[in-house]
C-alpha cells in the first residue's frame, strides 16, 4: 500500500459544481477527479441493477462520457449533481437491462459493504456525507415493512411500473401504489429528520 492513488492536487477540494465548470471548459483532470469521487458508487449502482460487471462498466463509461460532452448544460442551482448523476446511471442501466434482457440480480437484501471497497474511495470531504447518507438509507430501508421495501426495490432497481409490480406480486394496483408512496415518504422523513437533505 506504499503507492497511494495519484491525486490531482487541489481538485479533491473543489465541489461538484466547480468541477463541472472546469469540465465544461475541457479540463480532463477535473473529469478524473469527478470520476474518482462518484465513479465507484455509480458503478455499484449499475452493477446492482444489472448484476453484470461488464454491462455496468459500459453504462458508467457512457454516463461519464456524457458528462464530458454536456457538462455545460448542467445547472447546479436547479438540483444537486448527484441527483442527476444517479438518475442518469439508473436510467441507462435499466435501458440496458431491457435491451439486453440481462437477468437482474435476485437478491433483495442490502449486503454489507466490504472494507476493501470502502477503503478504495478517495479522501474527499464530501465522502463523509456520502457515508452518513449510505448508513442512514440502509437503516431506513431496514426499518421499512418488508412489503414496502419490496415494491420500492422493484420500482427503483428494476425500473418496473406500478402495474408490472402489481402483476408480479399478484397484488391490487391500489395496494402497490400506496405501498410505494408510504415507503418513499418514510425514507424521506427518515433522511430529513437526520438533516440529510439540503
Amino acid at each position: 500500500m506504499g503507492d497511494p492513488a495519484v491525486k490531482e492536487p487541489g481538485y479533491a477540494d473543489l465541489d461538484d459544481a466547480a468541477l463541472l465548470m472546469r469540465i465544461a471548459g475541457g479540463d480532463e483532470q477535473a473529469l478524473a477527479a469527478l470520476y474518482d469521487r462518484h465513479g465507484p458508487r455509480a458503478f455499484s449502482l449499475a452493477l446492482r441493477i444489472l448484476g453484470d460487471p461488464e454491462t455496468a462498466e459500459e453504462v458508467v463509461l457512457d454516463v461519464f462520457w456524457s458528462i464530458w460532452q454536456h457538462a455545460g448544460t448542467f445547472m447546479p442551482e436547479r438540483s444537486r449533481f448527484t441527483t442527476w448523476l444517479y438518475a442518469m446511471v439508473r436510467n441507462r442501466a435499466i435501458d440496458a437491462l431491457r435491451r439486453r434482457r440481462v437477468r437482474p440480480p435476485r437478491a433483495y437484501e442490502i449486503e454489507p459493504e466490504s472494507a476493501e471497497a470502502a477503503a478504495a474511495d478517495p479522501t474527499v470531504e464530501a465522502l463523509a456525507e456520502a457515508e452518513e447518507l449510505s448508513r442512514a438509507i440502509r437503516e431506513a430501508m431496514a426499518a421499512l415493512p418488508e412489503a414496502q421495501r419490496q415494491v420500492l426495490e422493484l420500482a427503483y432497481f428494476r425500473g418496473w411500473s406500478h402495474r408490472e409490480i402489481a402483476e408480479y406480486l399478484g397484488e391490487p394496483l391500489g395496494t402497490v401504489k400506496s405501498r410505494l408512496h408510504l415507503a418513499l415518504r418514510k425514507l424521506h422523513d427518515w433522511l430529513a429528520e437526520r438533516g440529510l437533505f439540503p
Partner: protein
Amino acid sequence: MNAQHEVFEEELAAYALGALPPEEAAAVVAHLAGCPVCRETVARYRETATALAYAVPLRPPPPRLKARLMARVRRPQRGNWQWLGMGAALVVATLLLTLAAPLIFATRPSVAPRVIPLQGAEAAPDAEGYLILEDGQGLLVTKGLAVPPEGQVYQVWFVDPAERRVSGGTFRTLPRPYGVYTVTVPSNFPLYVRIGVTIEPEGGSPRPTGPQVLRGVLR
C-alpha cells in the same frame, strides 16, 4: 397541503420513481404545470429516490474503466450524434438536407450546422434534445418528450445574460419517441446564453410560467 394534493401524492411518488406509464405520467406533468406545491413534493421524492443509490454496497470498479474514460476523452471528439438511433439520425439528415438545399442550389459554400445538446429538466428528466442551427434557421430535435396535456404546448425560450427571455415559438409533440420542430431563432442570436423549453398554455406565454422540460447552454 389540501386534500386534493394528498390524494395525488401516491401518483407523485410513483412519478418520482419513474413507475408511471406514459399516459399517467402525462397527467402528473399537467398537474405539476400549475401546482408549485406538488412540484416541490416531486423534487423531494426525487432526492429521496436518489438516496437509494447510496443503499447499494460499494463495489470498486475495474481500474480499466477510468483508463478507458480518460483515453476516450483525450481522443479528438467526433460528432454529437451518439444517442441518436438510426431512425432519428436519418430524419435529421433528411431535414438538414432540406435546410441546406437552398444553399446548395445557390452554390454558396455550405456552413457546417451548429449542434447544441439539450438536457432533460425537472418536468422531463429523461428527455433529450438537440438544437440545430444553420444559416439563422433553427431545428429542434427531441427525444423522449411526452405529448403535452390537452390545452398545453411546449414553448422554446432564449435567455440573455440579464435573464431576459424571448420566445422561440411553440410546438406540440406527437406520441413518438422522436420529434423535429422548427424554432424561431432571434436575429441577435449570438447575444443569448441559454435555451430552455417549458410547458405553457396553448398559444404560448409572454414569459415562462410552467415547468421546464429541456435546457441547454448556447455559449
